[in-house]
């Protein structure tokens, strides 16, 4: 369907012999935010790796705006407009803050509503601007998270994947990250937000997918989820 920003259909992915994703399918509508939930080891990060091309699936297909990504290497998939804020941030530690941004820069497609540049990122995250000459390795966890988000935005993506951006951060920084995500959604970006903490997602998301042992256990709109009062604990374990 043309209005899907991203779709996974019947993905089977393996690490060696271990069958980590088993027939995973879900869709992200254009301009929507999809909350992807699941407990430790459910396969959330693996799904991200499949989408960005780091782990080619054995079966199934991933499409962006209807265009299949089959067989493309990560650097070509990046060019189709997908960006990842990876779990653990993975900033380039020996590069300066500014260098982390410029290596990922890609011009915005024609007619895009927003256009990100180093200056725009520094405006959104003033802390980064203040520290632009420092090595990313010496930043605090919160600053590295901002940098990882800024780096992803520098490619002017159409689809943004965020893998547990709140992990290991202090509550007020988590709140700032969440405000940023809300703002990006309001600008029309299509977003997959991976979280273990369901409470952070349910208010922000249009749709929610819950993975359990490599399978989709729940796929509902956030509204339906709230009105039905599904027992999230059953799928996510106790927090």
């Amino acid at each position, binding site marked *: 369907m043309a209005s899907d920003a991203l779709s996974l259909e019947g993905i089977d992915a393996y690490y060696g012999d271990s069958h980590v994703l088993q027939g995973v399918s879900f869709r992200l509508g254009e301009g929507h935010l999809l909350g992807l939930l699941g407990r430790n080891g459910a396969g959330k990060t693996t799904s991200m790796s499949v989408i960005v091309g780091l782990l080619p699936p054995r079966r199934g297909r991933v499409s962006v705006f209807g265009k299949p990504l089959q067989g493309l*290497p990560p*650097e070509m998939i*990046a060019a189709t407009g997908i960006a990842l804020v*990876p779990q653990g941030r993975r900033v380039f530690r020996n590069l300066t803050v500014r260098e982390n941004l410029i*290596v990922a820069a890609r011009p915005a497609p024609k007619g895009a509503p927003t256009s990100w540049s180093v200056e725009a990122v520094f405006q959104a995250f003033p802390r980064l601007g203040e520290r632009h000459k420092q090595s990313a390795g010496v930043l605090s966890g919160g600053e590295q998270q901002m940098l990882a988000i800024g780096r992803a935005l520098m490619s002017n993506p159409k689809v943004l994947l965020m893998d547990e951006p709140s992990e290991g951060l202090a509550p007020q920084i988590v709140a700032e990250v969440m405000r940023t995500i809300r703002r990006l959604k309001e600008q029309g970006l299509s977003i997959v937000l991976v979280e273990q903490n369901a409470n952070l997602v349910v208010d922000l998301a249009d749709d929610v997918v819950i993975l359990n042992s490599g399978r989709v256990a729940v796929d509902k709109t956030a509204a339906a989820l709230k009105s039905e009062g599904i027992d999230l604990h059953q799928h996510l374990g106790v927090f």
Partner: protein
Amino acid sequence: MNLWVILAINSVALGGLLFLLSAGFSLIFGLMRIPNLAHGSFFMLGAYLGVTFLRIGTNFWLAAILSGLGIALLGGIIERLFLRRLQGQELAQVLVTLGLSFMFADISLMIWGGDPIPLSAPSALQGAMQVGSIVFPSYRLAIVLVAAVIAAVLWIMIDRTRLGAMIRAGVDDAQMARVVGIRVSRLSSLIFCLGAGLAGFGGVMGGPIFSAYPGLDGDMLPLALIVVILGGTGSLVGTLVGSFVVAFLYNYGQALFPELAYVILFLPMLVVLLIRPQGLFGRLPT
């Protein structure tokens, strides 16, 4: 003129040549983790290519540049054909590059024969320049100048450009670099070509001093190894300092204790390996 001064001048010139040789070795090993034992061959083949270009009447500098380009191309072919498939398998890479270096030795013996072939320096630089009571051989001075320019260009390229930042990003986290859209494997090829080309260029630059001869490859490789181990892999400053340290050790060692020349050369390397394995200027992997 005083022996010490002559030795010092020769050492500075040798240091410049060693930098041209080792910068590429250090880039290739520091950034791509490939222990390229064919690096001495690149230097020797560069010198022989220079011989051929000079024989057909090419100008010296053009010959040096063309030889550098030729060796860069050869390096690119080797990287694509062999080393790319052996990514991360250092022992296999050692064996492949060592094997290639033996093959290159045979092939050059066949093409250029077994006698040393001197390369003549550009005629404008064959004399000497006198400053006060000290006489500088012009060509050796030129070597130092060229090495300094190349060091500066390399430093700017790696440390001050977007291309350099992309290369360093690939070294930091190759997977993540690909995910943000950097063509890491293309940059690796570029680095390998650049490193090989510098060695080839250095071979021609060294030609008027060493000549081109069978065994030049084996004479140069250990020197590059020592330079890079002393200075630290992947560190340009380290390579620069290491080149001059090794050049002085080499010349003075040979003049003062000729029978211990190799001890004087390799002992500092062993000490550095034991005390500071990352080299004097190297960084430990983070």
